[in-house]
């Protein structure tokens, strides 16, 4: 009887969990379902299935060249991730393995960097990018985006690299390995999951990034998807289906990445958070 009672007790708990799961999923469902509805049906019931599935918006968007902005987002996020991961790996290697003058001071600077957001540096960055004539270029948004993500990258990878057993590194030194060999043959193979986690998070941040592109890019051909959506909304305010379609297109790659590598995402987010 006790197990029966135990199950009975679990029912309210599951109800709470299911409630919050539905809460999480409803807006995503609405965006998806609105993108395949005939134009005016969105005004009836936002969560209902359409009477007839229509994919007209997807075709229109492709014809209007929105795939270009999609590619821009992809280049922006990939390059940002690549640069951030490389620079962070090198710096984290020094922070985790080596002892040197000024280590604490430099690491405190990295921690301060964690607390800086777009708002804190936008004005000088805006002036610098304009002076360098990098407005309306991908490079002009990659540079500040890397600056924001770098502190997190160094911090996260330092935490992870410290978990590599010291004995292993000492043994490699005795065997005559230099820095390059230790990094390539000892640290990197053992830390691949962590680097993957960092890459995913940086990619997500850059892909969803909005403030820098909004301020630094006005040319619709160069804009990443995030800012192009706003441009689209300004032109077709009441075209819900069209807006939903652009949103789904922007969300889909991230969603797929998340589905295939959830554990890496979780690892990066939680470890980055906790050790802080």
């Amino acid at each position: 009887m006790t197990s029966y009672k135990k199950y009975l007790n679990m029912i309210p708990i599951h109800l709470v969990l299911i409630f919050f799961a539905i809460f999480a999923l409803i807006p995503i469902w609405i965006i998806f379902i609105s993108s395949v509805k005939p134009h005016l049906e969105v005004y009836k019931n936002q969560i209902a299935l359409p009477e007839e599935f229509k994919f007209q918006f997807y075709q229109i968007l492709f014809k209007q060249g929105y795939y270009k902005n999609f590619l821009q987002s992809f280049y922006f996020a990939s390059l940002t991730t690549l640069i951030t991961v490389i620079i962070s790996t090198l710096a984290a290697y020094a922070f985790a393995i080596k002892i040197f003058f000024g280590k604490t001071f430099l690491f405190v600077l990295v921690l301060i960097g964690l607390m800086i957001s777009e708002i804190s540096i936008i004005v000088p960055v805006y002036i610098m990018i304009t002076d360098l004539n990098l407005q309306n270029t991908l490079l002009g948004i990659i540079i500040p985006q890397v600056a924001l993500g770098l502190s997190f990258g160094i911090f996260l990878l330092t935490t992870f690299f410290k978990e590599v057993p010291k004995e292993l590194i000492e043994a490699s030194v005795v065997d005559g390995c230099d820095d390059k060999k230790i990094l390539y043959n000892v640290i990197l193979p053992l830390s691949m999951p962590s680097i993957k986690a960092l890459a995913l998070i940086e990619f997500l941040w850059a892909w969803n990034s909005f403030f820098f592109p909004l301020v630094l890019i006005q040319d619709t051909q160069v804009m990443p998807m995030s800012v192009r959506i706003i441009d689209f909304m300004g032109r077709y305010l009441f075209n819900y289906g069209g807006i939903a379609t652009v949103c789904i297109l922007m969300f889909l790659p991230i969603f797929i990445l998340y589905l295939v590598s959830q554990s890496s995402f979780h690892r990066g987010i939680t470890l980055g958070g906790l050790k802080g």
Partner: protein
Amino acid sequence: MTLLNKNAYFFLLPAIIYLAIWLFFPLLNNTYLSLLNAETARSRDYFFVGLDNYAELMKDKIFWRALLHNIIWVILSIFFPLVIGLILAAILYNMRSRLFYASIFFIPHTFALIITAIVWRWMYHPKYGLINQTLDNLGLGFFKMHWLGNENTALVAVNMMGSWSYYGFCVLIFLAGLQNIDPTLNDAAKIDGAGPIQRFFKITVPLLKNTFMFLVIWTIIGSMRFFDLIFVATNGTPNLATDITGLYIYRLIMQQGRVTYAGTISVILTLFILSMSFFVIKNLMKEND
């Protein structure tokens, strides 16, 4: 091991140069800019004005109101996503299906904030929106409201969007924090006859204090990042009831061309965030001793 400690700066150099130019120089330059002004907006002939910008800031009602909204945002976020996240994590902790649920709760966090704003704006639509329609169907029609158009509800309604994207993140962080807690503590309390609610308040909550404080700092920093959300959801309307400091800076740069004054605000905000964070961290360290 001395051999190993060589060349440290070689590895650090790219990061040091990059952060110096693109993060710390802007921070300092910002402070310098805040002491300048131009004859007309958009002109780039700056001249030194001392603390004039700060004097103006002190009297700037729009700024203080926006900052107040930032603070309200943080407080609301501590109440809803953080507390809900804590409770959900405590429930999930002993369950086999915890990763399944945590993964679902986390999906909104991968949603771009602008998309979050777009879809929630539809859900808040006074006539066709899901929220008002649901209230109607439940016979609660008298609760219906123009959520985003009403000065009293707009900020809370927008914060709700932020909470939706944030609570799954809190669940994950709390779950990770719970995994660091010694499970025998809970078992011992169980044997001593403590109920689940008692155990939650007497064991889980005190031991998760560090995690909680971390999330508070993260929320303070994050309240500056919710620019995207508010920019798309309300852009400060109605009547600046949802204006936050980020939006004000954006307007100053892009619409009014008052770059140095925007820099002044950003200096104050940065100091505000850093001092709040250090205050929280310091208190944490004191109590851990």
